[in-house]
């Protein structure tokens, strides 16, 4: 039992064989470069706009490099966004940890302790990850009010833990399904019970599963907006809400929303760049069966 078994054939590793020659190879690269331009132009625009003096930002000179580099935008944006970045961090870290741990336990139970009704319960759980959250919004904040968590970051954390359960359960269930039952049987013979099997066999093998789930959940929660905008108050606002308010408000100077966008994007982008492999795996696992 090793990483191979956990790897459910979702990697995008290069295909080795199969030669392709031809006079049209330049067209392939032309196409790829064109696409690269499409994906990167906005990045260029964001960065140069963020680095311009507010007065130097005119629509006509949008694409020009700044004449003086105004790093101050980031200082201002940092000052404005630091509290919301901290909220986002607390939120994403706690809710990710909570939903990953519960999801791991659920995945273990659903894949290794089959009991009657599981085939009905599991799809009912999964449906929860597809619903438009508008359909639960009004009762949700009534509920949070009744338990005294409305406006508190803890309320938002609870919300994200619960609505994260379907996807984390799904990923862990598929992940643990690859671990042969024989391993569990031998542990049972050794006298291991429910928790013993989890602690001694599954949990130690779960590292890459946790990485996938943690990346996925962290990204989703960090980026979420609807709950964030309806369940928070000023002091508990995550970065997405602050950014939407700044950019959608009456800001006339575009350097700040652009610098703010970069700050809001950096954490998830870093994760993507450093742990891209696991990121892709989480993304493919999102399509139910993978």
């Amino acid at each position: 039992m090793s990483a191979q078994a956990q790897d459910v054939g979702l990697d995008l590793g290069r295909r080795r064989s199969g030669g392709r020659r031809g006079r049209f190879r330049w067209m392939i690269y032309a196409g790829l470069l064109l696409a690269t331009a499409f994906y990167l132009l906005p990045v260029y625009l964001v960065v140069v706009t963020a680095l311009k003096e507010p007065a130097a930002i005119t629509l006509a000179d949008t694409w020009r490099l700044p004449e003086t580099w105004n790093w101050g935008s980031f200082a201002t944006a940092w000052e404005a966004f630091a509290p919301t970045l901290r909220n986002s961090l607390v939120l994403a870290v706690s809710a990710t940890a909570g939903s990953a741990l519960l999801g791991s336990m659920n995945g273990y139970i659903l894949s290794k302790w089959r009991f009657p009704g599981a085939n009905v319960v599991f799809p009912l759980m999964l449906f929860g990850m597809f619903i438009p959250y508008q359909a639960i919004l009004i009762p949700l904040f009534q509920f949070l009010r009744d338990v005294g968590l409305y406006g508190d970051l803890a309320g938002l954390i609870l919300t994200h833990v619960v609505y994260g359960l379907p996807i984390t359960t799904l990923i862990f269930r598929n992940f643990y399904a690859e671990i042969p039952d024989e391993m569990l049987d031998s542990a049972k013979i050794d006298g291991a019970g429910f928790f013993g099997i989890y602690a001694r066999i599954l949990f130690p093998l779960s590292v890459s599963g946790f990485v996938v789930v943690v990346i996925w959940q962290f990204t989703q929660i960090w980026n979420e907006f609807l709950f964030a905008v309806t369940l928070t108050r000023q002091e508990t606002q995550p970065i997405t809400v602050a950014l939407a308010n700044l950019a959608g408000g009456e800001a006339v100077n575009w350097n700040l929303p652009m610098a703010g966008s970069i700050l809001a994007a950096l954490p998830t982008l870093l994760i993507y760049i450093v742990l891209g492999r696991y990121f892709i795996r989480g993304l493919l696992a999102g399509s139910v069966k993978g």
Partner: protein
Amino acid sequence: MLRHILALSVVLGFGLGAAQGELEIFSWWAGDEGPALEALIELYEADHPDTEVINATVTGGSGVNARAVLKTRMLGGDPPDSFQVHAGEELIGTWVAADRMEDLTPIFEREGFMEAFPDDLIELISTDEGIWSVPVNIHRSNVLWFDPDRLDEWGVSVPNGWGEFIDETCPALQDQGVTPLVVGENWTVQHLWESVALAELGNDDYSALFEGDLPWTDLRVVAAWETFGDVMACTNDDAAGLSWQQATDRIVAGDAAFNVMGDWAAGYKVTTLGLEPGTDFGWAASPGTDGTFMLLSDSFGLPVGAPNRAEAIQWLELVGSKEGQDAFNPLKGSISPRVDSDLSLYNAYLRSAAEDFASDAKVGSLVHGTAAKEAFMSEFATVMEIFLSTGSADAAANAAQAVATQVGLGE
């Protein structure tokens, strides 16, 4: 690793503990309108150094985003200590009707507000059961803005009525490649509508619309929509993408000649852009509304269940005081409703607005929550959309009547 993450979150999470003596003020005054509120907060902090003031702002044109957030908080049982609310129906029809506000009559009596504020304003914030907020300013909605030097350059003058604007001013400007009238996102178009409707209907019929005494399908109202359509034909085609400040910038830049905006535009021009009233920019009552002051008033109220009620009451006392109002209004670009305010502190525009306020007939603004209940005002955006997409005055009139019936306008 997970243990570390949890530990980290615990450490960060419990940093949020409440300080001794807090006061949370909820408003939509950020950015350009922020300094005025900050001046008021500084005054408060000078008097109450132990209280930490939380300045909770949600930006977005004319408070639409802020009001949505406020509602989720109020429904969530998490009211701020005091929040900004437009005097009139937005206060009475939404919050007082739902029994979510505290009666402020004792404060009014104790602080002498009864004498300090004009009676017709107190009427706007009162019901038979009490007085429900403290007004901090008066804004005028029906103001036409322009740059006098540029008008001379283009050879046009301030139109006396919308007819003149449509027939003469508009084509003259269009021939020179100038946008005759600049509008921005949805609410600024509605803002223009209320000025046009006021001019076309006159004060009594305009007010009767919101009291349910004049049907929206009346021929006079349909005719007002038609005029409005002609006016819209003189506006820019990229309206939806502009905030009101960006629309104002077009006049400053000389791309457009006029706009109709509330007089917070004067605050923006003076405080943010550093322009001189009278020379760098000019103003007039919007065409056909001379002698009428379409007003809106920002006020602060005390929600039931405010967590720091004592501090909130101190805040409201300051908001209504002469000292507080004269610190706030010159920066905000609004006039103080107090009859004893010190006019020498105010700029040329505001002094003229104060004169008009004292002498003009007064009607309430629709878009800014004074005249009609919020359910109507909010759906009026849809009515406007129907008009803009069909171009049919009849369709708009029918839709407006349907909304009026549905929400029980004037009941």
